[in-house]
């Protein structure tokens, strides 16, 4: 069996929503997988078990030497994959010939670009940062093209953010975990419960959604928000005093806690402004909602439109106060059974087309063919 070392730029304690099912369960059916995380706080290398390593960030630039120093057999790997960190990728490429592995670069999300967009949305001048970004992207592309394969989250992410990458590309998209589906819990309340989970910032224009909610005549609804950006939401919600009794803010610490929260609601919200960064993949929150059988109100994108059908297994809306408000009014007159039926159909649809089990097999086959 071939062996993969997956080096992620994430912290050891991060809630590995994407890694967990794909790398921990399904890819392991096709190859042996070791996963390496970093820690900003602990001083020494740790083997959590035979397949999980934690390395202090200060060793980032000498990572493979540190692994060797801790008796990790680098010759045993057929593939070494680096997530998002170009400096690490450079380091891994440097030793490719010595240890005879294929070097893979995983591009999960254009974080730097999004940060610039976010800052611009806050009115900050980003001219210099844009220039730097252009130069960095060019340099990074050169390094990625030295790898054996490129693993973006979607084809659109490749085309929009790394169009000049010409090496073999393997799509590594988020999906639904067939072994971790939560039963939807029908609540006793008379109100319709909406839920939004995930990051909230200026770029996501959540105010537009709150504007739509504030225009509703019905009061038979609640909006649950789970985000790490609690402070941002608190400030935002202050501008909507009439909505405050309808909104509950959470900061679910673990994936389980998040799915438990979602399972107690009726409809998930995945409404995002029409920006390329949000159109290049299906938001992870969508998979979280459907994992609990909760249907989703979402915006159109190249991705969502090919998976879901409006009124059958999801609902679509343009990202405008008027459109969202109309859709919310429509949803408020649906019965709980009708809503649950849409959720079930959406879950089935994802199991059919976006399933970690099949995605892992495709990735493994493509890796073996390199």
């Amino acid at each position, binding site marked *: 069996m071939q062996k993969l070392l997956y080096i992620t730029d994430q912290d050891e304690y991060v809630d590995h929503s994407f890694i967990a099912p794909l790398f921990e369960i399904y890819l392991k059916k096709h190859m042996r997988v070791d996963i390496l995380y970093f820690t900003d706080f*602990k001083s*020494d290398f740790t083997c959590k078990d035979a397949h999980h390593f934690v390395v202090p960030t*200060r060793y980032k630039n000498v990572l493979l030497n540190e692994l060797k120093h801790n008796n990790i057999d680098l010759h045993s790997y057929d593939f070494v994959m680096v997530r998002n960190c170009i400096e690490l990728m450079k380091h891994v490429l440097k030793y490719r010939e010595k240890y005879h592995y294929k070097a893979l670069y995983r591009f999960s999300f254009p974080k730097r670009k999004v940060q610039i967009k976010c800052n611009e949305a806050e009115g900050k001048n980003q001219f210099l940062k844009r220039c730097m970004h252009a130069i960095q992207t060019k340099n990074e592309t050169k390094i990625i093209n030295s790898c054996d394969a490129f693993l973006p989250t979607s084809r659109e992410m490749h085309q929009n953010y790394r169009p000049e990458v010409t090496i073999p590309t393997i799509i590594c998209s988020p999906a639904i975990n067939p072994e971790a589906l939560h039963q939807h819990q029908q609540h006793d309340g008379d109100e319709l419960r909406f839920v939004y989970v995930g990051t909230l910032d200026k770029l996501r224009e959540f105010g537009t959604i709150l504007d739509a909610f504030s225009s509703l005549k019905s009061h038979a609804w609640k909006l649950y928000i789970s985000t790490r950006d609690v402070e941002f939401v608190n400030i935002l919600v202050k501008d909507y005093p009439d909505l405050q009794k309808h909104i509950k803010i959470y900061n679910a610490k673990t994936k389980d806690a998040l799915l438990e929260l979602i399972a107690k609601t009726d409809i998930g919200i995945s409404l995002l402004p029409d920006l390329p960064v949000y159109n290049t993949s299906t938001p992870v929150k969508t998979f979280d909602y459907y994992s609990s059988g909760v249907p989703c109100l979402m915006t159109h994108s190249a991705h969502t439109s090919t998976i879901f059908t409006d009124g059958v297994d999801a609902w679509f809306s343009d990202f405008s106060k008027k459109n969202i408000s109309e859709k919310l009014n429509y949803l408020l007159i649906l019965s709980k059974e009708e809503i649950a039926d849409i959720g079930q159909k959406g879950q089935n649809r994802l199991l059919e087309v976006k399933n970690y089990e099949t995605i892992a097999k495709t990735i493994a086959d493509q890796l073996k063919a390199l």
Partner: protein
Amino acid sequence: MTKNNPHIRHYQILIVGGGISGSALFYELAKYTNVSSLCLLEKYEALSTLNSKASSNSQTIHIGDIETNYTLDKAKITKRTAKMVEKFCLQYDLQDKIMFKHQKMALGVGEKEVHFIENRYEEFKELFPYLELWDVEKLKELEPKVVYLDKAQTKIRPEPIVAIGTNTQYTTVDYGAMSQALVEQAKTVSTIDSDIFFNTQVTDIYQKDDKSFELHCQDDSLFTADFVVVNAGAHSLFLAHRMGYGKHMGCLPMAGSFYMTQSHFLNGKVYMVQNNKLPFAALHGDPDILADEKTRFGPTALMLPKLERYKKGTYLDFFKTLNFDWHIVKIFWDLLKDSDIRNYVFKNFLFEVPLINKGLFVQDAKKIVPSLSVEDISYAHGFGGIRPQVLDKNKEELLLGEASINPGCGILFNMTPSPGATSCLGNAERDMKVIVDYLGLDYDEERFLADLTE
């Protein structure tokens, strides 16, 4: 006295350095082995006048529960050695005399640290079952000064905080007094021929043809021994270099200073989450057992070109021990090119500059106590020691923690910066095993384990 020369004293084992590490080894050898004769040479007029002295360190038992830079594996090891300190003190009824219980905690400030502390608690609670996770409400009760922005305690700090801690454990030791206790008990429990010489500075050690060692002292006295252990802080490396050992190492002496509050301030020890790039403990606040439990904030970290603080000289020794070459330049370059370390070094330099030091230090310490002001603290004159951080020239990196040189020929050299005091009995156990093996002595391991381990 040796048979051939009545002016030379001979011992089977000779320890150089009467700090906590040397005293611990003296005790273990005397009590648990059948060593025939034992000697300890101390440069100054008493035991522990340098880094083991209570005013030179934080007086903390670093067991690994709130030391956020420790991995679980490391904590398992330090727990065993730290418990030895506790067991020793309890064995001789030294609790509440030189060993004390204080509340202690590691405080996470901000989303990232809070997330880390919460997860670390889950990971470590099995090893340290007494640990508790304290949220803001609990902290208001236990250590209100870390919660509030103002002295009147009306406004809560805006960033999220959480702590892991305990108030049931022994946390604090006067390591200077413990050195004294170790040596006294060694003399009491053992009938072997043992001596301690003060004001005896070893300047050179030579290995003779018969494999024994000859130690030359500044006062022209001579000692010989079959086995030598050098536990002399930064001077361990200095003496090793003179014998041609440990040339791949250099020593970077880091001085730590403290600031003291005017009165009782914090209820217990408050440590912060540590940056793993820095080889020193993050700023913390400790109730000082020498100063009526006033809170001592620190330590700072300043590179000093000398090996001993508050003592004359040792500048030349520093340059010799640094063992300067291009590898050292490379280590400094690598350290300073990291902005976190660069800023830390620069900031700590400013902490020593009169007039501006206090204001700058308060800015940093506000992470622990947001309402802290310059009026609350004063520079703790005479407090603070030197941590001999070791530079590994082969790996071209600054080593964290302790280092030991064992050439395998009957001599050991130990450099034991923090947490060296906590692990003194554990390190002594390690060295004792080497000695016993080398000299073919008996070692009462059963008794040792019964006395000092859980």
